[in-house]
């Protein structure tokens, strides 16, 4: 009996390693370090593979860990393509000199506003900062005029954010670029006293919806995504766009780039081209991501407030400094 048991265990181990082992080794196709939402990249990867037959292996993570990881990996990075939700992570990798130039065809598919002048990476989607608030707790006239107002003592204990996420850190990086280091540090310090920390923007919205907190600084698409499903985490939520070129009206560009160290540069470039092209951008319109499409002539989901109406501040994506942001946030005790 005992021996039978151990034999069984051994046999199972062998069988499973034969079945599952190969599934885990990805030596063909391209490897994408994906910081975008898993579903979106999955849809892109499937669409791309269907069209080109090139296999895509996705490793999921976050903007910041991947960007730092790629820098640490250096030339030996196994990644071929890097996709983010926000620009600062792209800037970090770019300034380490690890990106190959993006093919001109690809760059041509995206307006200049959504790509850096260097041409080292390209915007693949965009998202807008919003103040999501609970309709039953706040009325329109009680909303903050500017995101900076949230530093006011009157907002103490009334708003939420997800400071460990790259999304919020991108917003801070925009603030840093627009208002400078001193103002940003002050705002973060006030934020530390005023805000309630949650992990993840969905969680923030869920808390707002439940009335645990009055409002939160997140991106727009969480609301639309939930509304498209059951709306159970957003039925009490409304979105407030700061507009007015406020730092809180920041539109963040999600980027894509090809690693200089890629062993499959052709396939990697093809992937990026596909994502920024018709097929990839169409998925943004029709899929459940609700991020803004950025391709030339591409339409975003009609449910969204058009990009052009958002009165976003002009922020040069190539100067967003993620290292400085995490240092400031660490100093403010947010990390």
């Amino acid at each position, binding site marked *: 009996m005992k021996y039978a048991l151990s034999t069984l265990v051994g046999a199972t181990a062998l069988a499973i390693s034969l079945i599952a082992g190969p599934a885990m080794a990805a030596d063909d196709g391209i490897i994408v370090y994906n910081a975008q939402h898993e579903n979106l990249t999955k849809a892109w990867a499937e669409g791309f593979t269907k069209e080109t037959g090139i296999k895509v292996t996705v490793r*999921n993570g976050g903007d910041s860990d991947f960007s*730092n990881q790629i820098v640490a990996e250096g030339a030996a990075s196994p990644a071929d393509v890097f996709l983010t939700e926000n620009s600062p992570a792209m800037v970090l990798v770019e300034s380490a000199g690890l990106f190959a130039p993006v093919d001109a065809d690809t760059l041509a598919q995206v307006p200049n506003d959504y790509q850096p002048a260097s041409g080292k990476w390209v915007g693949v989607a965009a998202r807008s900062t919003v103040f999501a608030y609970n309709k039953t707790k706040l009325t329109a006239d009680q909303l903050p005029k500017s995101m900076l107002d949230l530093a006011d003592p009157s907002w103490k204990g009334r708003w939420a954010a997800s400071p460990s996420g790259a999304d919020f850190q991108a917003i801070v990086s925009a603030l840093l670029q627009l208002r400078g280091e001193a103002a940003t540090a002050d705002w973060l310090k006030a934020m530390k006293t005023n805000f309630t920390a949650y992990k993840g923007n969905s969680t923030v919205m869920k808390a707002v919806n439940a009335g645990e907190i009055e409002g939160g600084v997140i991106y727009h698409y969480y609301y639309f995504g939930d509304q498209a499903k059951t709306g159970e985490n957003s039925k009490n939520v409304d979105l407030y766009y700061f507009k007015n070129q406020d730092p809180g009206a920041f539109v963040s560009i999600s980027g894509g780039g090809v690693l200089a160290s890629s062993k499959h540069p052709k396939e990697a470039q093809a992937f990026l081209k596909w994502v920024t092209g018709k097929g990839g951008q169409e998925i943004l319109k029709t899929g459940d991501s609700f991020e803004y499409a950025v391709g030339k002539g591409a339409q975003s989901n009609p449910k969204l407030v058009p990009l052009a109406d958002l009165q976003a501040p002009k922020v040069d994506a190539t100067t967003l400094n993620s290292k400085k942001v995490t240092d400031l946030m660490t100093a403010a005790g947010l990390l």
Partner: protein
Amino acid sequence: MFPTAIAVLQLLPLDGTGTASDLMQSAVDLARSGLPVGTGRRARRRAAPWLVIAAIFVSLLALLPLAFIIWVAVQTGWETVSALVFRPRVGELLVNTVLLVLLTVPIAIVLSVALAWLSERSDLPGARLWAWLCVAPLAIPAFVHSYAWITMVPRLHGLWAGVLVSVIAYFPFLYLPVSAALRRLDPALEDAAAALGLGPWRVFWRVVLPQLRLAICGGSLLVGLHLLAEYGLYVFIRFDTFTTAIVDQFQSTFNGPAANMLAGVLVSCCFVLLGLEVLVRGEERYARVGSGAARYQQRTRLGRATIPSLALFVVTTLLALGVPFVTIGGWLAAGGAAVWRFDEIGLALGQTLFLAIAGALLATVAAMPMAWISIRAPGPLQRLLEGCNYIVGSLPGVVIALALVTITVRIALPLYQTLFTILVAYALMFLPRALVSLRASIAQAPVELERAASSLGRPPLQALWSTTIRLSAPGAAAGMALVALGIMNELTATQMLAPNGTRTLAMAFWSYSGEIDYASAAPYAFIMVAMSLPLTWLLYVQSKRMAGR
């Protein structure tokens, strides 16, 4: 998720005849005391050099993460280190972590002692069933407990929420050793105390409780180490500890110095716990003095206290098992057939099983030389080496992962993000589990057999294989099962180290629940629990059997 540091198994008494250690002893304890493991009766003998070399190699490997943290600290320079360590945020985390431990551990102790006493020493109806139900919560990963609670009570957050869910998730780590100790207590001592004029309560305080001290110390240490190491549980209920902060830093800066210094502080906390346990435990001896078999224990009649006692078990079971099962069931019902994406689930299940079994095999093989030496050729060197292994086993997975990421990236790049590295991480984290089980079973394989095989002409390795290894196979299998259980529910290290394309059950669960897609996460939670339940049954049976000897 934590390496579940030192296996629960280790909490169970292995053997009363002096062969084996006492499962009740915690890691360090085992390391420190050098284990009375059957050395008395058997002649010490010289270990084969290749075994010693293998054991030294494994121990050095185990020390890597620790050495790494020191190395990073030295490299970073004192100024930066002190700036990163002595800042208000670290103070905040420290207060959070200390309060969490100070509140959770005593509550868990009181609860476990009460439950253990009632199920072992009273005439509680259905005591056997309740005893198993008190172990079963171990089958539910801590972050699934939290997921269930946050579904039931969405507003749950902060310190008290942390204490509540932690007690529920971790009390079995105390319940197991305490009930095993109670089972082994010599009832004659209680009789003696009663005859000396002590009423039942005073007997409990002055005789029973002091003898549970070792079990309570060991169990508390385990709970404490888990509290320090757990990640997912506290993310759900928004309670920041060192581990969550390290992961935050890792997510913001990858392997930056801030993350590593937080890890340094966390490691110090672990050492403080280990040291405290040694201090509190003292030099007590709790074994039966004298000879003769312990008498069959009389069960105390509860009488009118039966109903409240049953109520305690019902409430505990409802909280620890009812809430997760109802929640998972609820989400599964809400999600319907749509959440059963069989291709995706199948892949995750296959990968998880593969990692769990491969990791368990590696951990067992790595533990083999050390286990053999500690039984057959104990001595100061062995004690030292074993100490290394246990200390690393008590480090949070996030620390080990962080170290391995940095080491492989900087020094051993070909190993970076490979199956090999993640399996090494698992082996390091769960080595103590494998070691304890193996040692117990090797202790049961008489050395004479090995010698007989040698005298019949088998070369040493073959002799070892055909006797000790074959005989210790059941114990090794149990140890492997426990390692596999740990790997199956591991999250943080897996996320940081796994090869590209890996998606384990825990990772999939975490990713869905992170997007508040609780319904899609439910099948994964369900599978993790369903696969773990038989293993906790094994644990329960083993604890019964071992204490019964």
